[in-house]
């Protein structure tokens, strides 16, 4: 009786340890892939049409979902903000609320979450399937480095697309907030923009938002690439890898957001 309990406990500990080691191994392998991508990324700039093609798939194809969701997020912010602010008699500050929350937080974070769902999964599935169908091995056989040919262009495409998408998200969101606040509710047009311009700082708010989106772009794309590259070459393996991309990307983005914000906000 006592021995079975001990064995169960030992198995539990062993399981925790194995999971920990596997997580750390994956972290190390991911970091190695990241450095290899940086080293071999010369190809993706010399043959820039490879990168342009990937920008088309990750960036241009994500435009619709980004713009539509930004519009709705902005309108919801306008409605919710007005509802609370008018209790304190300062409904003109709605422009400030909408702009600051979009530029500082919602723009980069929601874009990164949507990007992980829209582009990250596509990258993981594509590379996972390439591995399953042995396209990557075939490239190696032909002395083509798959990291330089497949991974690096996708990486740079993600890093370039993310800040552009986040800036678009913020701008369209502000326009959505404007649409609800000014024509619909009747907040003063001049007060909306002038209060916003008075309290949004270009360096502290807008540039910091862009820095955040670049970091999220690196994280999301790298996670998607690694999961695809690391996926077991089976249908089930690719499907698991795709799921993991979304879960890990989302958690990483939210955690990184906290870290970056705590660096940026100096009390």
């Amino acid at each position, binding site marked *: 009786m006592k021995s079975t309990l001990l064995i169960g406990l030992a198995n539990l500990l062993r399981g925790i340890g194995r999971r920990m080691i596997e997580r750390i191994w994956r972290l190390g392998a991911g970091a190695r892939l990241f450095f290899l991508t940086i080293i071999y990324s010369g190809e993706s700039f010399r043959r820039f*049409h490879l990168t*342009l*093609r990937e920008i088309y798939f990750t960036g241009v194809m994500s435009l619709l979902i980004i713009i539509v969701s930004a519009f709705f997020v902005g309108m919801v912010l306008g409605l919710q903000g007005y509802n609370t602010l008018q209790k304190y008699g300062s409904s003109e500050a709605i422009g400030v609320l909408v*702009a600051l929350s979009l530029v500082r937080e919602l723009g980069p974070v929601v874009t990164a979450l949507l990007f992980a769902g829209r582009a990250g999964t596509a990258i993981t599935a594509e590379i996972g399937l390439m591995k399953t169908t042995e396209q990557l091995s075939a490239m190696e056989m032909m002395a083509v480095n798959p990291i330089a040919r497949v991974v690096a262009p996708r990486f740079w495409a993600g890093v370039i697309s993310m800040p552009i998408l986040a*800036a678009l998200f913020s*701008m369209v969101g502000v326009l959505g907030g404007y649409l609800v606040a000014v024509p619909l509710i009747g907040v003063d047009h001049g007060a909306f923009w002038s209060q916003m311009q*008075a309290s949004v*700082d270009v360096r502290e708010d*807008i540039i910091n938002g862009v820095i955040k989106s670049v970091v999220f772009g690196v994280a999301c794309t790298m996670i998607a690439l690694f999961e695809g590259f690391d996926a077991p070459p089976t249908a089930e393996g690719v499907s698991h890898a795709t799921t993991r991309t979304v879960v890990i990307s989302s958690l990483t983005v939210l955690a990184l957001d906290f870290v970056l914000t705590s660096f940026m906000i100096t009390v």
Partner: protein
Amino acid sequence: MDRTTIDLWVGVFVALGVAALLGLAMKVGNLTSNKLGDTYSVSAAFENIGGLKPNAPVKSAGVVVGRVTDINFDSKSYEAVVTIKIDKRFEFPKDTFANIYTAGLLGEQYLGLEAGGEDDVLKNGDKITQTQDAVVLEKMISQFLYSKASETDPKTDAPASEKDSGDAKSTELGDAPF
């Protein structure tokens, strides 16, 4: 898909991104309204600056004429030394009065300049000698309550003094502020 079509779409995408960033900087941010031409620096010492912060506006007659560049603590006189930069287009007399005001009841604090009557004007590195501190809300409330308490004291004291005055006074003081 054709390579030129892809190039075109990526071009449109990048142009949209640049336009959005420019729009954010111009329309949402303060890139356009933050312009000060050539400036000169002036300092002023305050006993209490309240919540004044660097980059707060300096206004005269409600118009922004400069910005607060630096706030330091002088450990000899125990005063706050506020350095401001004022646009060269605007000249102020030497005996200009510097106040710290609050925009609205709970708004941001800013520095207000009221021009004096002297002929000499402030130059780079000069010091404004006439200053008025920020109004601290807690101080004002406690002053108000104090004066209120001393106002009500004699009235309530009069009937109470007929009986044992010491006991009644302590309860009155305890009740007075709230």
